[in-house]
């Protein structure tokens, strides 16, 4: 076959309107196989798929804006999926009501501490203000974090990266840290996953069981509300 034929085939492939959707789906299938074979928590499907997608985009010269627009049908379902988190939340409401005060205390103590520690360490190591503002909402879900960062002079896509690193790292280190600290209660593990590692942590928590997943969804939603409502007030006082 002449080189021009292969060139044409390649161009036809990467300019097809379905290319971005196909790429995302195939990358995800590959990462699922890898994750199931190895069961290695560092190889979170989200992270492996993202790495595969980024590699192909770089190799084919497609920019992120185009990929984002063409893969929109997949990302579009993120909204309804967030709404659907109310279902496991409702299913475990009895247990949650029973533990109202522990949940509130853990959320306020742990949630504030993770934000304060992150900002303090980054500040001491010389990170600039726009980076700090993009880091502050890192424990929230992506839409909230991007919103808060943009409102206060950070960068939305940088905030999304912080959210992703936090989610993947928190989820990968979670089981190990829990074993060290002797945390076995599914409710406690779930809440910790949700507060610290949002949606990625919730996915891992759902794998551990329904109760764990419900508390993770709860931790994630409450942390999102805390960051969306309380963090802007804190930033307003600090940046005044």
């Amino acid at each position, binding site marked *: 076959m002449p080189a021009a034929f292969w060139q044409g085939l390649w161009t036809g492939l990467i300019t097809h309107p379905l290319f971005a959707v196909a790429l995302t789906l195939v990358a995800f299938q590959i990462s699922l196989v890898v994750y199931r074979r190895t069961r290695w928590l560092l190889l979170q499907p989200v992270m492996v798929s993202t790495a595969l997608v980024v590699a192909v985009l770089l190799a084919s010269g497609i920019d992120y804006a185009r990929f984002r627009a063409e893969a929109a049908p997949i990302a579009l379902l993120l909204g*309804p999926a967030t709404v659907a988190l109310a279902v496991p939340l409702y299913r475990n409401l009895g247990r949650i009501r029973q*533990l109202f005060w522990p949940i509130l205390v853990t959320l306020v103590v742990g949630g504030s*501490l993770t934000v304060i520690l992150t900002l303090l360490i980054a500040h001491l190591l010389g990170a600039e203000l726009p980076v700090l503002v993009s880091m502050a909402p890192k424990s929230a879900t992506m839409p909230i974090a991007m919103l808060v960062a943009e409102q206060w002079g950070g960068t939305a*896509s940088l905030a999304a990266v*912080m959210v992703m690193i936090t989610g993947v790292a928190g989820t990968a280190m979670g089981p190990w840290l829990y074993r*060290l600290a002797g945390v076995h209660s599914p409710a406690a593990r779930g809440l910790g996953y949700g507060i610290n590692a949002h949606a990625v942590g919730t996915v891992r928590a759902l794998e551990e069981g329904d109760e764990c997943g419900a508390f993770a969804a709860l931790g994630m939603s409450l942390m999102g509300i805390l960051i969306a409502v309380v963090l802007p007030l804190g930033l307003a006082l600090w940046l005044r």
Partner: protein
Amino acid sequence: MLKGLTFLVLLQLCGSLISQTLLPMLPGPIIGLLLLLGWLLVRGEIGEPLTQAANGLLQYLPLLLVVPAAGILVSGEQLLGDLGAILAALLLSLLVTVPLCGWLMQAMIRRIDRARDER
């Protein structure tokens, strides 16, 4: 499945409208989540179509997150500039707060359970 999905989409739309008009600090999907929770509380049961739609979507949550996650392509330079400080801050804070949250919650759960057993 489709009935449940329709309901979820409508709730997200309601949430987005509320977000645009009344509560700009909370994004539409989170308001939708709270609306659905309120609706389930009033109704007292989940129902088959909603269960199917929710299970179907939540099963593929990691797939849905891949698209925004690939945004790392755009902010790579800013990230690399402060990479050391960023990674240290993100990872060290996790090392402290993940076990702290789990331990604190578990300690309080055990106290409540013990108090109930003694009663």
